[in-house]
């Protein structure tokens, strides 16, 4: 009885970790760009494009890591468009983000149809992301198969990378010069500019990185959680990641907590589904969204978005 319960808990935690990972990558991307003062609601499109590029790359190269890299490049390229529009040509950032969403999903399906015989999904990739514990110690060597520890810790490499990235981004944002500059540009670009920081360069870098991370998030879905891209795979995860970023108050560690919470809702949903408990999955699926609204309503007074968020910075005008 007790043993089964512990195993169930392990299952839920493990599933939560798996489903949180794509969100963690993508919402980290959101944190980076918004901290530099550029809103990016195009995360969904970038994630979708990255998910496709990841699966396609992994399929043709038979190597998930090459797929992972393809996803980063694909997301970054799409983000470059957003950066050009928002940073160089003073585009309304939300509108540009909407355009990116059209383009990202459009491009993913377009290329998919070209490469995969008219299908809006890729073929199954031959090799998924490895499980590092199995890789290092051999299957079932580190922890007993399907035991609590195995369920929790024997996860795809992407899961470990995501947690590492949270720490890394936190460190860069708060402990390094470049991070301080990103935050300065997001809070007060005019002042940063006066101090000789290139607002344009920082924002380009931040927006492109957000695309890279969103792309990785997409790939974490298409080459780890499942093993192919399909047209409904991403449907909304980019928006959940965006919510997680806001939920987490524009902080990497906050976003992590929010993503785990949202992933947890999915974990519970899957667990109950597997147990045959008659809880409507659709109602559980609503939870993250409603929770976000409730939290925003409750704590918005305490959340502080970056000072210059969404503001167009024009060097000519301020100089």
């Amino acid at each position, binding site marked *: 009885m007790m043993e089964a319960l512990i195993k169930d808990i392990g299952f839920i935690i493990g599933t939560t970790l798996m489903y949180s990972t794509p969100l963690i990558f993508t919402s980290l991307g959101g944190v980076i760009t918004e901290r530099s003062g550029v*809103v990016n*609601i195009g995360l969904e499109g970038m994630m979708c494009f990255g998910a496709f590029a990841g699966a396609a790359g992994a399929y043709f190269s038979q190597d998930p890591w090459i797929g992972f890299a393809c996803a980063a490049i694909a997301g970054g390229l799409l983000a470059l*468009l957003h950066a050009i*529009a928002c940073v160089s*040509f*003073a*585009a*309304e*950032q*939300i*509108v*540009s983000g*909407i*355009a*990116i*969403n*059209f*383009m*990202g*999903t*459009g*491009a993913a*399906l*377009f290329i998919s*149809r*070209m490469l995969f015989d*008219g299908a809006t999904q890729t073929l199954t990739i031959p090799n998924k992301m490895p499980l590092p514990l199995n890789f290092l110690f051999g299957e079932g060597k580190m922890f007993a198969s399907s035991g609590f520890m195995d369920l929790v810790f024997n996860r795809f490499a992407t899961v470990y990378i995501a947690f590492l990235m949270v720490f890394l981004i936190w460190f860069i944002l708060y402990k390094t010069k470049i991070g301080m500059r990103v935050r300065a540009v997001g809070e007060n670009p005019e002042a940063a500019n006066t101090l000789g920081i290139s607002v344009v360069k920082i924002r380009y870098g931040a927006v492109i990185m957000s695309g890279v991370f969103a792309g990785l998030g997409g790939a974490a879905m298409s080459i780890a959680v499942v093993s192919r891209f399909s*047209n*409904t795979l991403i*449907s*909304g995860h980019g*928006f*959940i990641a*965006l*919510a997680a970023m*806001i939920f987490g108050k524009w902080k990497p560690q906050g976003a992590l907590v929010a993503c785990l919470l949202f992933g947890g809702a999915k974990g519970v949903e899957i667990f109950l589904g597997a147990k045959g408990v008659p809880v*409507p999955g*659709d*109602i559980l*699926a*609503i939870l993250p*969204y*409603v929770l*976000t*609204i409730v939290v*925003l*309503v409750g704590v*918005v*007074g305490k959340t502080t*978005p970056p*000072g210059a*968020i*969404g*503001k*167009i910075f024009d060097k000519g005008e301020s100089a």
Partner: protein
Amino acid sequence: MKKDARLKKRFNIRGIKDFLLSGSLGVTLISVFLGFMVGAIVLLIAGFNPVEGYFAILKGIFSKPKYMSYVVIYSTPLIITGLSVAFAMRTGLFNIGAEGQYIVGAMVAAMAGYYFHLPMVLHIIVCIFLAALAAAAWGGLAGFIKAKFGVHEVISTIMLNWTALYLSNWAVTLKSFGKQGTGKSFAIQETARIDLFGQWKITEAGIDFIRSHKVLGDILKSPVNLGILAAFLLAFLMWYTLNKTTLGYQLRAVGYNPNAAEYGGINVNRSIVTSMCIAGGLAGTAGALQIMGVSHRIAKLATMEGYGFDGIAVSLIGNNTGIGSVLAGFLFGSLKYGGSKIQDAIDAPTEVINIMVGTIILFVAMPKLIKLIFSFKKGK
């Protein structure tokens, strides 16, 4: 006051306003042109002949009366969701929630259409009224949260979109409403439908007519319905409300400058809620009309159908006006329907349309770039 400052801080309302003011027909037309160019380049890179591609699209739109009829049917919901986004935009709000409001409207119309047994015209009115009311509440909720708690409508409506989607999916699983195992709801009653000649079409006389009349018969092969008339009416009503009534003046004043409007004695918070209610009602009507005229039922959705997101595109391309939304809605509807033909004709992916639309929006968002291109030309 403090709240306004915070709102501005979050999403830069002034930026949206400047964007609206600078949006002119010239920029739009050039953007559309550039969108087509990019679409052609994409086709070219993918190894297709863009001239053939565009010809296939044009043929898919104009070569048969039935096709043109389909274009009108495709355009109808896009025009109305476009109006929803445009109305909010004109009053300083960004209604990304049209998608969810559309879903709520469709769901409520499908329920009212199936559960109620009412006489012909009354049933239609009740369905539209209830759908619009529910969707207005859905949109109004985002307005209320913004007015009361300062949560930006872009964020809250994104959340409400997905809430609506899963709510609708859940409704389909209900035993009394959804056909078990099919993922679809039961069809609405005949009395709630707005199809033209829907019943008559399947009688012997109707079948004879369709066979013997080349043009009219062909048109009748598509699910012709009264929706487009409603779209025109709503476009006119939106123009009238915004430009000819006190309410419209107040709402626009709040959109233009909330502080000045408040100083002038306008209740800003109430205006925000009102505006979102109207925008929601419009999007909900689009959903209702689609159910009552075309699909007659709702189905479980794996992902968003995109009527609301397409409405954002329509509104932006249409410069956030009533007539603009009608024209942009037809453009988008044509591309969507005609674009689906490109697949059969030259085997090119129909998603090139999405890339084109995205490009058009991106250029519409960058009047600065367009002006740069202009001045470059002049300089030459």
